[in-house]
């Protein structure tokens, strides 16, 4: 037991890697699902344990040295309140969606491919969890590529239903690879000036370099700026931040139902985490925001994302694409929180990473149920479903309320903190845009809700029933969680506050 406790941080990444390989070899029949479920369940338990440790029990950081090589020479896994929260989010969504995917993938992926699907599924989680936990810049890149490569594959597996999944995957592959390469170039620049790949070590060495900038002999100024720019562009691509979001709508739309739910809840969130990590604990906000004023640029992109994403979402007739565009907007909220550079802003970002994962996860899963029963997710497929699939539609509606930010849903909590942070910085217009975004969300969620509850089933459409229980339960679980964390935000606020104050160096 003690041994497990000791190796917990490594286990989070290594366990799904091993079980993923096992799945590929042995996971015939239904076994792949059981293995994945076991692995994600174990990972969830481990991340929750770590979260409790760093937020509630202390100390605030847990360090694990790979092969016992001391940092900065070896790769270290460092858990702090921020990545513990993000990891718990990823693991939670991973587990719940795995539960769901057992049934939902059946009509989308042929049984002889199922074990590869589950193997790649677990590799994807390896990558996402690894990115979050690692304290090493190059390790970050490798795990980023592991998650990305498995994501491309998972998206492409939607081709059984719609061949556009393939083109969506390859377009994402091209842009994703460029993004990862940009990140790699950026790291090279930082390595040139600091000679280190460890995040904490880079941060310490950069501080010495920044100190020279105030003197007559500043060094490495241009190199560091170039490195920072490359990294930010790379991460923005992963994050699908406007205007680098073009890969995202098609990828989410044509991926298998469960994959959309997984990606919407985790992939871009991990990108957001990467951005927070780079800006706050590697480059430092004094450089990134105060010196370079990149917070203005980031905030501008975020606001454009909110407006453009939401307006595009309103125009869509495919409900999955509508949600995908809405995600573009929601990423804007997270980015705005990052740019605000105060406790409330970071809290908003962290809370929204979690809350949006819940709401979007629930909504994509609800659409998966609709897809499973009706064979399509265009708005006309949703018509009149409110009576035929009441629970599915209820979950979708709860998720939708979360997107709008209706009080008593989790979305309201994140918006509250976000507007608070903007107002604390005297950003009146951005605060207004955030609120206008809620109204735009009302319009696009309203379109779906109207079709569901006030539309009539199309003529001579086949009879539909409520979704199978094995899909319904996970969907309702996330929707209920979204409600719960909207009514009692004590936990999320506490965790996000710990993360924000840790990053900003404010005494908790």
């Amino acid at each position, binding site marked *: 037991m003690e041994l497990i406790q000791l190796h917990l941080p490594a286990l989070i990444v290594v366990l799904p890697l091993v079980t993923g390989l096992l799945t590929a070899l042995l996971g015939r029949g239904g076994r792949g699902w059981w293995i994945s479920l076991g692995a994600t369940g174990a990972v969830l338990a481990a991340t929750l344990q770590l979260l409790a440790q760093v937020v509630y029990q202390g100390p605030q950081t847990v360090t694990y040295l790979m092969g016992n090589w001391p940092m900065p020479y070896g790769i270290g896994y460092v858990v702090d309140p921020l990545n513990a929260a993000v990891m718990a989010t990823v693991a939670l969504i991973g587990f719940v969606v795995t539960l769901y995917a057992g049934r939902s993938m059946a009509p989308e992926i042929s049984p002889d491919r199922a074990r590869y699907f589950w193997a790649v599924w677990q590799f994807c989680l390896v990558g996402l969890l690894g990115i979050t936990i690692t304290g090493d810049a190059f390790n970050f890149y490798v795990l980023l590529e592991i998650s990305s490569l498995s994501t491309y594959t998972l998206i492409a597996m939607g081709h059984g239903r719609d061949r556009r999944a393939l083109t969506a995957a390859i377009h994402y592959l091209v842009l994703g690879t460029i993004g990862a390469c940009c990140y790699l170039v950026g790291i090279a620049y930082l390595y040139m000036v600091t000679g280190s790949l460890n995040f904490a070590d880079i941060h310490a060495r950069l501080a010495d370099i920044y100190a020279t900038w105030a003197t007559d002999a500043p060094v490495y100024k241009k190199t560091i700026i170039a490195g920072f720019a490359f990294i930010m562009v790379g991460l923005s691509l992963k994050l699908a931040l406007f205007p680098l979001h073009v890969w995202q709508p098609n990828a989410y739309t044509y991926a298998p139902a469960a994959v959309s739910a997984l990606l919407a809840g985790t992939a871009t969130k991990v990108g957001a985490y990467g951005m927070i990590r780079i800006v706050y604990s590697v480059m430092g906000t004094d450089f990134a925001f105060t010196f370079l004023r990149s917070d203005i640029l980031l905030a501008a992109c975020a606001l454009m994302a909110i407006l453009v994403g939401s307006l595009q979402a309103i125009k869509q007739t495919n409900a999955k694409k509508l949600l995908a565009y809405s995600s573009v907007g929601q990423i804007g909220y997270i980015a705005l929180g990052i740019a605000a550079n105060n406790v409330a802003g970071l809290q908003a970002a962290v809370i929204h990473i979690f809350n949006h994962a819940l709401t979007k996860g629930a909504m994509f899963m609800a659409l998966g149920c609709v897809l499973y029963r009706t064979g399509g997710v265009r708005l006309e497929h949703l018509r009149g479903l409110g009576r035929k699939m009441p629970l599915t539609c209820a979950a979708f509606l709860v998720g939708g309320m979360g997107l709008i*930010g*209706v*009080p*008593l849903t989790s979305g*309201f*909590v994140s918006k*509250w903190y976000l*507007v*608070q942070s903007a*107002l*604390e910085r005297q950003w009146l217009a951005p*605060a*207004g845009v955030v*609120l*206008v975004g*809620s*109204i735009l969300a*009302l319009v696009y969620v*309203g379109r779906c809700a*109207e079709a569901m509850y*006030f539309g009539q089933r199309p003529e001579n459409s086949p009879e539909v029933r409520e979704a199978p229980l094995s899909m319904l339960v996970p969907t309702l679980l996330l929707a209920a969680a979204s409600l719960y964390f*909207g*009514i*009692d*935000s*004590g936990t999320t*606020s*506490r965790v996000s506050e710990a993360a924000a104050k840790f990053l900003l160096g404010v005494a908790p």
Partner: protein
Amino acid sequence: MSPELTVLLAVGLPLVGTLLIVALGRWPNLRDGVTVVTSLAVFSLVASLLPAVLAGRVVEAQLGLNLIPGVPVAFRVEPLGMVYALVASLLWIPNSVYAFGYMRGNHEKHQTRFFACFPVAIASAVGIAFAENIFTMFLFYEVLTFSTVPLVTHKGSSDAMRSGRVYLGVLLTTSVCLQLFAVLWIYVLYRQGVLPGIGFVRGGLFGNALAAGAVSAQMLGLLFFLYIYGIGKSALMPMHKWLPAAMVAPTPVSAFLHAVAVVKAGVFCVVKVIVYVFGVETLRLSGQSAWLVYVSGGTILAASLIALFQDNLKKRLAYSTISQLSYVIMAAALLTPVAIMAATVHIIAHALGKITLFFAAGSVYTAAHKTQVSQLDGIGRRMPWTMAAFTIGALSMIGVPPVVGFISKWTLLRGVVESAQLGGTRAEELFALCVIALSTLLNAGYFAPIIYRAFFRPPSPEDEHHPHGEAPVSMVFALCTTAGLVLLFFVWPRALLTLGAAVMEAAT
């Protein structure tokens, strides 16, 4: 029972009622019985708090919700809130009795959903009335919006859907983009130590901050603007469109919107915010609220003019409501103690009068299936009770003795005089006087023809073929009761003026 528990029960009991109504949906008589019992119970709970409030005791209660840490959902009963809670819970009783007759008489569908929404709306109305801070008020304000949408769209026709969209769109856009903005701004100012809190306190929050220069007069003015237009339910022009749109709803809903909960919530919030957030004295000193007298005066005249040209009876009543609401706002904007009292009294007077008018309109629709003013020739002979009640309500709107409308108009005139004595700007008082005089003429102009047609014109020949008498007993009973109240409070004005005096006492 302790007063704290009474407050929480008054908010919570209707929600229990909703659950019971949904559960008993199969047995209409039992279901409607629950509504009656709940309404009586809520009223007696609210009324039982009255002695304590009049004695000047403070009754406080807190809900153990952790929506946003550090922002409590709390209640405090004070005279102004008491008035609104009394009006809403009292009028809900005849409203539900009336609704049974209407819904059954017109064979409406989805009656369970319909009756399940009312208690939620009442719970939120009581929540608004007793809110201790601006956040709690916002919270229940939104719940009220959402809980009344299914009522507005009840018919499910495309017309009803369109109205529902306008209703939700206007109310939510104003409340989220403007009111929530103001709430958060005040909250941020409080967090920064500029304001003493976010609660409703005697004399308002801004007094010291304005005097110390921490808040500029312009900022106060901007916040005031945000708040006044953020309360879209008060239907101040140009944010009034939702009210006529909501006329597609069944008449009990119209009565509920116009007299019991929704628009009253709007003007009540305006008065409460002026008195307890901005402070009468502070606003007077800052001179930032003069525009409101003109805008509300303009609304009174414009809405009355529009009402003159409406042939649809309910539309005419809707515009009459818009104009009457602005009386309350104009009174509050005059910023004198007596004017605040006038606003309070007018909330009650208008509620009683308008509910009678709508009941009458609905009973004409149920019995004779008539909706237009021009069809009403001679109807007074067939439906003497209904049209007599209508006449009493109309007189109250015009503001002549022997009905309660006269009391409120008289108090308002006293408020204007007091404002002039306090040395306010001459122009505002003159303007207010002109508005009151003109609008009394206009009110008479659009109500008198209806009464004339009903009683003094012969019925049109077609009507001979469709013999009808009075509406169902429960409807006639309800409208006679409210008409009786309109007369009663003229004979017994002390009841109103005592409440008004208590409000005035607490306001300054």
